[in-house]
């Protein structure tokens, strides 16, 4: 039975009953309800327990500001933690649970912390973390078991999310009176308009109030406005869509909640959509938050914001109380009294802190026979799990707020609901995120937008305009101004007619004094979600905190899912009072995106699973897969790592692959090498400046190993480059460096040397590269119809020529990265698989063995070839790598001057060496640090590190490559590899070239 549901009124559909569960119990609500309105309709006041003190808490608000009613929805992989009951739309079968409260919210063991809550004062966590550590483990167990937020799902999210980019002329955040008016003003001009609102329906406050616009009910005016906008194709309306981020250059993000309100669905459509909007003009019309009043036990279930009470009555047809007291320092709460009276509730009294009382609305309220007590305050509430009564005291401000109130004046009024209003705070979050300033208005007693840095304007309550006619007018003006900015025709839309009323100004009242001092009286809460009280802020100031950001972190004021939407302003005002400074000087904490909690799914969008990052596969990939290759990721490339034979492990496969390559022939897919085609009359001139060696002396058809340095003299990338013609070169780069080298070359060509006539083309994907290496590689190529002579005399080491293999046009390079006789074959990628298969087929007679990146690494390490990025780290010069011979003396090249800097000439630079473990059995992990003295006391000085380490199949013992201080001069000496387990392995320093140091095999 929905005992608090009104017989009529509201925007819910009483004929559509929805069943739902809360904390295991079955309830019924209506279509159009939120979870919060349905719970209130059923008389459920106790929703959860507070974070730190486990105090019973109920629903306070009706929207994004709600601090208490945070619930867990559903279970399993699609469970949603930390959902705001005021924003969860009710659906059939909804299953919600309180986040906290064990064994139940009614009887919570954790609430014993109430008894020693004095020990949980501001800074408790910091103080306990600091000392003594022993004590922390005791508290940690207690706190972690009983506190904490919702439960994250442990399985992958089954839902779909998407990102959508959009551009518009005018983006309007908020579809209340100001936002709708702005949209109407912009729609006729033909401007591309996006209007987004976090609620399920457009209308904002108009859905919760009983105003009239243009002599019709405000809700009818809203319906008319929506209808008008819907007829414009240039207007996109996004309900259930929160504008949560405002970034540079009018880039705005919106989270659209597409399906949650439809109930438990089958995860077949997009659940949430992230809109990434670039807007020419942004109109911020998000409205304002009503502020709570701060008095003792103001957190008791049944204490609600006055505007929220009006919303539940007018929008949801729910009267949250029977006997109500209204407490305010401003006029707006009087509307709540009128709404409650119309709903049949008994309004016991309106308590107004102002001696003057209210304007026109007070007479309306009194005409209904409701008592208005001006110059009074509510100072305390009574009750346990729900409010039972309030304590009223006389109140006046003479200069300053009195420290305490006289106890003998207290009057107790029984009630089951207290509706409070401490005034309004504009939602300046997005304005502030955009870089706009905010200032404290001494007239309105709130922070208001003041000056923008981007193309945006604030309108309506978010701009401090409380009255309806001001909201409509500001919206209209903002809409017209935006259209004018876009150079479109301004419509002659007129401001709708509304009835104005006389109001009295608000009385600033940041905390209501109690009969005792703040640290002796019941808690006066500023931030409900974090249990931050007036006493906590006072303590922080006493302990020396001055800056609002520090106080925030010390007291936890403004943290949590609500980010202090209700509590922040009161907290800052109380801080200002204790600091003895004006609020304007204290300022606010920083507003950052996201405005409300936004799911990881929305942020990730489609980029999950296989779409997380692009995967590049070579043209031969399907053969590797069929052959059972194990793959590794190199940049975005998937490369064969090794080709296990049967159930071979990595070590066994690599040993077999390496030995076969040295004995007969190995074949490797090297297609991922970066390839750049360089052409133009100034190609030589350009490459002379890029590479360290003498490019001009290279003959056509010759290859060279080339290195390029950064201007700091450090090795940047390496590879084979070949001269294909007088003005035509072909460069290879490392797999990982392909894109950055291309961009680096373009940088110099475009910015520093635009006079050079040179053209660069990336041909990485155009050509696939197959490397065949081993003593029988020449015979293998001859076996597949090679049309040219491959003899050393005709085709010497480090040269290139075109040829046909199997009737396919190819370019051959006689280069070697294994130390064996080897050929690299470039073939158009379309033909790569054909050629590979032909080589494998013909290779049967030569014991051909495909090998992957791991064997490639081992083979090159045996030969002492460096891998840029593995053996180097951006701090290694060519000299450190024994490559001084590659530095041409008679020309300038990038980085050359840096090689003469004092740091490049230091004797103790880390330099490239080979290492062999003295026991010839221990394989040292890559990254292991080297030390000189095993007896040295910690911290032990380190003299280098191991960059590559393998168990060499060819040599039959482990080898390592390392960067060792002064390494060039240390061959034959002994150093120690310092293992993680504390042991030290003696290593002998050798040349980095372990195998065929004369290079006879590759020249064969």
């Amino acid at each position: 039975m929905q005992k608090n549901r009104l017989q009529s009124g509201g925007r819910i559909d009483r004929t559509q009953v929805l069943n739902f569960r809360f904390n295991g119990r079955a309830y019924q609500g209506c279509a159009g309800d939120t979870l919060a309105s349905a719970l209130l309709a059923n008389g459920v006041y106790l929703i959860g327990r507070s974070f730190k003190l486990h105090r019973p808490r109920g629903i306070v608000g009706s929207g994004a500001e709600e601090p208490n009613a945070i619930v867990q929805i559903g279970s399993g992989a699609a469970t949603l933690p930390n959902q705001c009951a005021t924003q969860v739309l009710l659906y059939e079968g909804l299953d919600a649970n309180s986040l906290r409260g064990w064994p139940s919210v009614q009887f919570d063991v954790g609430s014993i912390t109430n008894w020693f809550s004095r020990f949980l004062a501001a800074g408790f966590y910091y103080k306990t973390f600091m000392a003594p550590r022993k004590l922390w483990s005791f508290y940690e167990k207690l706190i972690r078991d009983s506190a904490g937020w919702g439960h994250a799902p442990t399985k992958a999210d089954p839902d779909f999310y998407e990102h959508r980019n959009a551009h518009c002329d005018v983006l309007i955040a908020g579809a209340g009176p100001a936002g709708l008016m702005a949209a109407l003003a912009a729609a006729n001009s033909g401007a591309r308009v996006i209007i987004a609102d976090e609620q399920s329906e457009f209308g904002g406050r108009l859905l919760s109030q009983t105003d009239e616009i243009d002599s019709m009910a405000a809700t009818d005016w809203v319906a008319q406005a929506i209808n008008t906008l819907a007829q414009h194709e240039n207007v996109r309306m996004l309900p259930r869509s929160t504008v949560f981020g405002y970034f540079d250059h009018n880039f705005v993000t919106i989270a659209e909640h597409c399906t949650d309100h439809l109930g438990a669905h089958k995860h077949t459509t997009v659940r949430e959509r992230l809109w990434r909007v670039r807007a020419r003009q942004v109109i911020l019309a998000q409205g304002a938050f009503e502020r709570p009043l701060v008095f003792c036990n103001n957190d008791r279930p049944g204490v609600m914001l006055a505007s929220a009470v009006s919303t539940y009555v007018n929008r949801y047809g729910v009267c949250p109380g029977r006997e109500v007291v209204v407490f305010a320092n401003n006029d707006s709460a009087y509307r709540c009294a009128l709404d409650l009276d119309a709903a049949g509730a008994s309004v016991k009294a309106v308590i107004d802190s102002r001696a003057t009382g209210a304007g026109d609305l007070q007479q309306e309220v009194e005409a209904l026979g409701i008592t208005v007590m001006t110059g009074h305050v509510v100072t305390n509430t009574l009750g346990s799990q729900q409010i039972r009564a309030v304590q009223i005291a006389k109140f006046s401000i003479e200069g300053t707020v009195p420290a305490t109130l006289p106890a003998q004046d207290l009057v107790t009024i029984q009630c089951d609901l207290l509706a409070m209003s401490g005034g309004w705070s504009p939602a300046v979050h997005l304005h502030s995120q955009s870089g706009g300033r905010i200032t404290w208005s001494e007239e309105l007693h709130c922070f208001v937008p003041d000056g923008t840095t981007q193309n945006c304007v604030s309108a309506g309550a978010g701009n401090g305009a409380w009255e309806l006619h001001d909201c409509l007018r500001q919206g209209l003006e903002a809409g017209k101004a935006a259209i004018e900015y876009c150079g479109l025709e301004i419509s002659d839309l007129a401001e709708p007619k509304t009835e104005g009323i006389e109001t009295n100004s608000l009385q600033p009242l940041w905390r209501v004094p109690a009969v005792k001092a703040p640290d002796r009286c019941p808690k006066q809460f500023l931030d409900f979600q974090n249990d931050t009280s007036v006493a906590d802020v006072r303590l922080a100031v006493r302990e020396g905190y001055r800056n609002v950001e520090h106080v925030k972190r010390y007291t936890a004021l403004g943290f949590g899912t609500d980010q202090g939407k209700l509590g922040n302003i009161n907290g800052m005002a109380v801080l200002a009072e204790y600091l003895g400074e004006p609020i304007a000087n204290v300022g606010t904490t920083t507003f950052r995106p996201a405005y409300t909690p936004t799911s990881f799914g929305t942020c990730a969008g489609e980029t999950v699973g296989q779409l997380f990052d692009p995967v590049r596969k070579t043209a031969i990939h399907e053969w590797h897969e069929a052959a059972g290759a194990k793959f590794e990721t190199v940049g975005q490339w998937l490369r064969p790592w090794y080709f296990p034979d049967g159930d071979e492990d990595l070590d066994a496969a690599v040993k077999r692959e390496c030995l076969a390559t040295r004995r007969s022939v190995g074949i490797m897919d090297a297609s991922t090498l970066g390839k750049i085609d360089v052409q133009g009359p100034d190609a030589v001139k350009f490459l002379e400046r890029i590479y360290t060696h003498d490019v001009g002396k290279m003959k056509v058809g010759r290859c060279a190993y080339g290195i390029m340095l950064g201007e700091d003299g450090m090795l940047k990338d390496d590879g084979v480059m070949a001269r294909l013609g007088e003005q035509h070169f072909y460069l290879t780069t490392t797999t990982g460096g392909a894109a950055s080298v291309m961009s680096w070359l373009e940088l110099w060509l475009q910015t520093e040397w635009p006079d050079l006539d040179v053209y660069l083309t990336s041909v990485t994907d155009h050509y696939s590269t197959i490397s065949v290496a081993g003593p029988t590689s020449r015979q293998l190529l001859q076996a597949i119809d090679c049309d040219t002579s491959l003899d050393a005399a005709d085709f010497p080491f480090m040269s290139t020529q075109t040829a046909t293999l199997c009737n396919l046009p190819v370019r051959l390079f006689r280069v070697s990265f294994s130390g064996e006789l080897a050929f690299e074959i470039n073939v158009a990628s379309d033909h790569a698989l054909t050629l590979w298969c032909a080589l494998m087929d013909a290779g049967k007679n030569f014991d051909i063995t495909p090998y992957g990146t791991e064997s490639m690494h081992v083979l090159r390490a045996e030969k002492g070839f460096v891998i840029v990025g593995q053996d180097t780290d951006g701090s290694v010069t060519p000299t450190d790598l024994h490559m001084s011979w590659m530095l041409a003396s008679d020309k300038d090249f990038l980085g050359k001057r840096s090689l003469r800097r004092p740091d490049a000439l230091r004797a103790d630079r880390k330099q490239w060496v080979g290492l062999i473990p003295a026991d010839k059995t221990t394989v040292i992990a890559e990254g292991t640090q080297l030390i000189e003295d095993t007896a040295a006391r910690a911290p032990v000085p380190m003299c280098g590190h191991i960059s590559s380490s393998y168990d060499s199949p060819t040599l039959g013992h482990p080898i390592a490559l390392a960067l060792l201080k002064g390494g060039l001069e240390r061959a034959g000496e002994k150093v120690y590899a310092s293992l993680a387990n504390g042991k030290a392995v003696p290593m002998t320093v050798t040349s980095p070239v372990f195998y065929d140091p004369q290079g006879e095999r590759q020249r064969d």
Partner: protein
Amino acid sequence: MLLIECPWCGQRAETEFSYGGEAGITRPIDPSALDDAEWADYLYMRNNPCGSIKELWNHSQGCRRWFGVERDTVSYKIAGSFKLYAGEEK
């Protein structure tokens, strides 16, 4: 996310571009003639102003051209983009 104007392609989102540091750092004609301090000045010293700065951007996900942008490091406002050398495009 910045909105950057490529002089060749027009306004595009920041994600299409990569950053190249301060613009107008001219490479010395003869580096070998510089002493260590002068070379280090070219190599490492940058202005890092609080306010307007000219910097290099590359339209790496687009036309691959490098160009200059004048940007305010405080407000992130972009005054404009410019090609890096006078005269005709190649």
